[in-house]
Every structure is written in C-alpha cells, then in structure tokens.
C-alpha cells in the first residue's frame, strides 16, 4: 500500500473516531438534568421569549437527544460551533477556544523542549551506566517524575521559587498567570513570549518567560520520566546489537558509536512518545494550568466542566481529540523517514 493511501485510510478512520467521541461526550454533557440548558449562552437580556424559542428551534434544542446530535453535527459542519458561556458570555465557542489556545501551545512547546532536553540525556546515561549508580539515580528521578502529583509539584515549585525567594527579597519567579503586564504589547500571535519578541519589547518578553518557567518545568518533569524510561530501554536494546560490536571493531570512538550508531536506532520509539506527549499537552494540561492559573484551554475546559457548559466541552473534546489522532498519524508517517526499513 502506498503512503498516501495509508494516510487517507487513517484520515477516514479518524472521522469515525471523532464521531464516536462526540457522541459519547454529547450524551454525557447534554443528556442529564445537571447539564445546563445549551440555549442559555444564546440568551441576552434584550431577547423575547419568541426569539429564545426560535434559537431552540434553529439548533434543535427542543428535539430529543439523538436528533439534537445530528443538528449539532450539521452546525459543526456549517462552521457554527455554538455559543459558550465559559469565561465570557455570548462568545462563539471557536473564538473563545482559539483565543486561549496560543497559551497552551506556548506552554506545550516549552514543556516539550524541556522534556527532551532533560529526559534524553538522562535516558542515555542510565543506559550506558546500566545498573550502576548513575543508572539508579536517573531511574529514580524518572520514576519520581511520573509518580508525582501534578498539582503538588506545582505547589512545591511555587512555594520555593515564588514565596521563599520573595520572602528573602531575592529575585523570584511569578507564582501564577501567563504575564504580569497584560495589554502592554499588542496581541499578534496570542503567545506572550512570541508577542514580546515581535513587539521587540524585551521587558515584556522576559516577564513572559519568567511566567513560563515554572509551569513548563512542572509539566516536563512529569513527561520526562516516560521519555527517560523509553530511551533507556531502547539504548539497552540497541547496545546489545551486533552492529555496535562491528562499529567498535572498526575502532570508532565511543562518542561516534553511541551518537551515530546507537542513538539513531534508539530514538525511534522516543519520537513517538514525544509526539504523543506534545499532542496531549496541546489538549491542555488541566491541573497544571489550574494550579498556575495559566489561561490555556485546559483551564477553561475545567471551568466549562464545572459550569456544565456543554457547547464548549463538545468543541473542546472534538478539537483536542482531532489533534491527538492527527498527531498519531504524523508520528506513524515520521517512521518512514526515521527508519528506512519501514514502508507502507
């Protein structure tokens, strides 16, 4: 099968997956008394009862659930993603979502970079020093990474790098938020750091970076564990291979043997993992964003959950799920370029 055929096949499957997801979430979010009436966000003080009824008719809120679902799909396809009550009243859901998405993107990128920067070396070290002290140390760090409660770690970081540092009058990191200087530079990309750079405002950029450090680190510390583990396993596997013996017998230096011959093979699974993590983060790291009051989609979706705002939740799950599925696909396609042996 050709590569493009494979991709097309996956894309078609994706559509069905997304359908299933929205069906489940739709049922959960709309099917229960405790869910709010989806028409609410559409209503504003000037509206008459007739107008409200009209809205109900248009979006099929007066229909039974399984019919509402098809109304909803129709609206989605027509690009009408509904109105959300979360965070700001009477706003098109997509506007709200994509106004907060950049923050999540910024956070995810930073976290992923950190993850790779820390996790990769750790994994390699612990593979090379297999069952020696460095191995045990880095393995324990990794294990701690994925055993740590996200909010607790965030809190410890805040306590140390915000509270105690500021207590002693030392330069300290901000405890929460994405920027301490709202509205100083015009919003172009929506990502504080990038905007700061584009506006050439050094102070703003540094401030944004300072806000970014803690949440990014606490996220990366968690995903780092998994990366370290998989890199280590991969390296151990590869180092057992015969071609490493040959490379050594050629008299190559250890550096070349490891970084040219071993790493490239060991990296393949790591790439999958990193890709998946990035996708998951793009879905919004709810708890971390909640603890650090980071205005990303994760935090709003949390608010949406608490407010029972089905319109937002539906779009949110749909988009993030799509991101995850597509990320899967991209990773699989990446294989072809990473590993010459694989063909679709």
């Amino acid at each position: 099968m050709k590569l493009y055929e494979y991709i097309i096949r996956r894309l078609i499957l994706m559509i069905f997956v997304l359908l299933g997801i929205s069906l489940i979430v739709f049922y959960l979010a709309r099917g229960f008394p405790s869910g709010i009436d989806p028409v609410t966000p559409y209503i504003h003080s000037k509206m008459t009862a007739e107008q409200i009824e009209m809205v109900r008719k248009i979006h099929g809120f007066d229909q039974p659930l399984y019919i509402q679902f098809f109304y909803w799909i129709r609206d989605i396809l027509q690009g009408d993603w509904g109105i959300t009550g979360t965070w700001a009243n009477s706003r098109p859901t997509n506007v709200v979502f994509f106004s907060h998405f950049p923050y999540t993107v910024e956070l995810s990128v930073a976290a992923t970079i950190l993850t790779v920067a820390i996790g990769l070396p750790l994994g390699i070290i612990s593979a090379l020093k297999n069952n020696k002290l460095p191995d045990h140390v880095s393995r324990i760090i990794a294990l701690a990474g994925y055993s740590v409660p996200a909010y607790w770690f965030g809190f410890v970081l805040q306590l140390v790098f915000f509270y105690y540092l500021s207590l002693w009058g030392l330069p300290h990191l901000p405890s929460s938020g994405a920027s301490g200087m709202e509205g100083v530079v015009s919003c172009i990309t929506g990502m504080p750091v990038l905007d700061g750079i584009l506006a050439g405002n050094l102070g703003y950029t540094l401030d944004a970076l300072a806000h970014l450090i803690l949440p990014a680190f606490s996220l990366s510390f968690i995903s780092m564990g998994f990366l370290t583990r998989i890199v280590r396993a991969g390296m151990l596997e590869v180092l057992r291979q015969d071609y490493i013996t040959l490379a050594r017998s050629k008299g190559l230096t250890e550096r070349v043997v490891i970084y040219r011959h071993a790493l490239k093979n060991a990296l393949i699974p790591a790439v999958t993992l990193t890709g998946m993590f990035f996708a998951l983060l793009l879905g919004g790291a709810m708890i971390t964003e909640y603890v650090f009051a980071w205005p990303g989609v994760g935090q709003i979706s949390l608010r949406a959950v608490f407010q029972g705002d089905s319109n937002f939740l539906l779009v949110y799950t749909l988009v993030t799920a799509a991101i995850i599925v597509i990320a899967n696909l991209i990773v699989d396609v990446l294989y072809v370029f990473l590993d010459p042996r694989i063909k679709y």
Partner: protein
Amino acid sequence: MKEKEVILEVKDLKVFFHTYRGKVEALNGVELSLYKREVLGLVGESGCGKSVTALTILGLLPENAYVISGTIFFRGEDLLKKSREEMRLLRADEIAAVFQDPMTYLNPVLTMETQLKEVFMLDTNLLRKAVVWQKNHGGKIAFDDLLSGKVKIRDKSTNPKVSKGEINEMAKSLCVDILRLVRMPDPERILRQYAFELSGGMRQRAMIAMALARTPSVFIADEITTAVDVTIQAQILNLMRGLRDKIDASTLLITHDLSVAAENADRIAVMYGGNVVEVAPTVEIFKNHLHPYTSMLMKAIPDVKNPSERLEFIPGTVPEMINPPSGCRFHPRCSIATDKCAVEKPELKRVLKNHEVACYNVAV
C-alpha cells in the same frame, strides 16, 4: 621451511562468562601464535570458543566476560594490559575483523556511505595528505596506491590545512575505490543504499571493505562464509585470497568448516572445549593428524572418491561449558582416553617439527 616472525601470540588465555545461570568457562588456556603474512585457520565445532578468542584479541568482550589469566602479545606488547583507548587505536589501524552474519552486523538505519566513510575519517591526517598529494602531483589517488605504497604519505608529519569539503571528497572517492577493490558493481549506488537493500554477498563484501579500509596488519575473519550460500562463499574466499596478495597482513581465519580452512589456511589450529588441541601446517594435519578429536573431524569430511561410505559422526556432544569435564575436556568422548586424562589437563607440546598436540596418548 625457516622460522617466521610471530606477530600475534596468545598464551594460556582463560576467559570466563558470568551469567544468571552460572559461570561459563569459555576459554581455558588457549595457546595460539600467528606468524607474519600467514593465514591461520582456527577450526572447531560451534561453541568451542573460536569467536570468544577473536573478541578477546579485539578487546570487545561483553561486560559479563572476565579474562582470568593469560597474555596476548602483539608486536611484543600485551594487549590485555592496554587501556580501552589504546585498544581502540589498535583496532583503528592494526587489527581488523569481519564477522559472520552481515545482516545483523551492519547498521540498518545508516547508509553504506556513512558506515564506510567514517572508517577513513578516523585518520583525517592521511586524507589531508592525500588531498595535498593530489594537488601537487595532479591525477587521482586510488586506494590501491595507498596499499601498494606507491604514494609515500604514510608518515607522521604535521597535517596540512585542507578544507572539510575536500577531505569529504577524498574519503568518498576512497570509498568508491575500495568498493571496486572488493568487486562491488556500481559503487556509487551501493554507497547510497542501506544494508537491507543489499544481498548477503554484497553485505559481506561491504564489511570486508570496511575492515580493509584500515589496511590492517592482522585480519580476523570470523565465519565469514557461513551466512552466505556456496557460490558466494567461493567468490568471497577468492576475494580474500586476492586481497592477501595485495595487503601485507596475517589472517586469522575462524571457521567450523575444515574444507574452507584447508583451501585457504597455511596452518590449522584445532579447538575443542576452549582449548587448542592441535596445531600444524595444513598439509601435515591432513596427512598425519595426531589428536583423536582431529581424526574424528577428518572422518566427518565426505570423501569424493568413495561416496558410498557413510560418514562417521562424533559420539557424544559438545561439553556443557558451565561445569565442563575435568582434565582433558575431550575425554568423555575419547576412544583412547586413560584415567590420567580425566584428572589433569594435557599441555600443548611440540611432538614434531611445527606440529603441536595436547594429548597424553599420541603415538609419534
């Protein structure tokens, strides 16, 4: 036949492996000496420690292996006393090896070019001078010229300034040459390909080329013919023979196939259970083999003259290395064994001119 100078000498080499299941005594007291420009065939059943010997000489034993005792003298220096870095340098330009299964021994995700070029890149000094030489004399340096020493640049003079691009060019062209040398068709294409895109023979040649590229003085060929079918075997062996005339190297030809050894080797050392039991020139060993194990091996060779005769097989099996038989490891399977054999291990001693045997009961 006058004494030749010894280039590699292994004395009483004991190597043990530690595994979850216990201690494996892979080598116990291997005695071996390789003369300059000769081919020594190392013969034995699989699992008798041939490859381990090779790896020990290369200094590539896995972590769980330990050298208990012994010495390996190469040009008068003990390899076992050398640091890892020294061993690396040695591998880089003195001792080269070719292994048996070319599929697993070539890196699947790197192109042949990468894997071949990096070998030349080990000695950029040489490349630089080659580039300079080209600039001065015009024309083009082929790998043969380096081998035959037609181009006198093998000296330790300071390396001249040459751009990286040129060095790469040089290395590339050398790769092409060397692939031609091992009789690979269309080298440029091969260089762009990956291991899995090549046939078994080609992989084997590629590996030989890599070994060759260092113009080594000791050349360890570990079962190079097992993984490939008979026709390719022939080609490869011819290639080896051809190369032998070109490069001034002594070869340690490790094989379980007596006929291969017979065709190629000047001398043959027979190994059994981690010991060398008999060493003699090829002709000698075929005419008059003294060790009972050797004679059994001989019987196991099909005879073209009277094929009707059914082949002998060696009773018993290769000894378990975890707790090997005491004394002479062959005695459980030996027809002429005495009580003494079960007690103490026979030393390899010279019984005839250039013919050594490790057995108590050989009648000379």
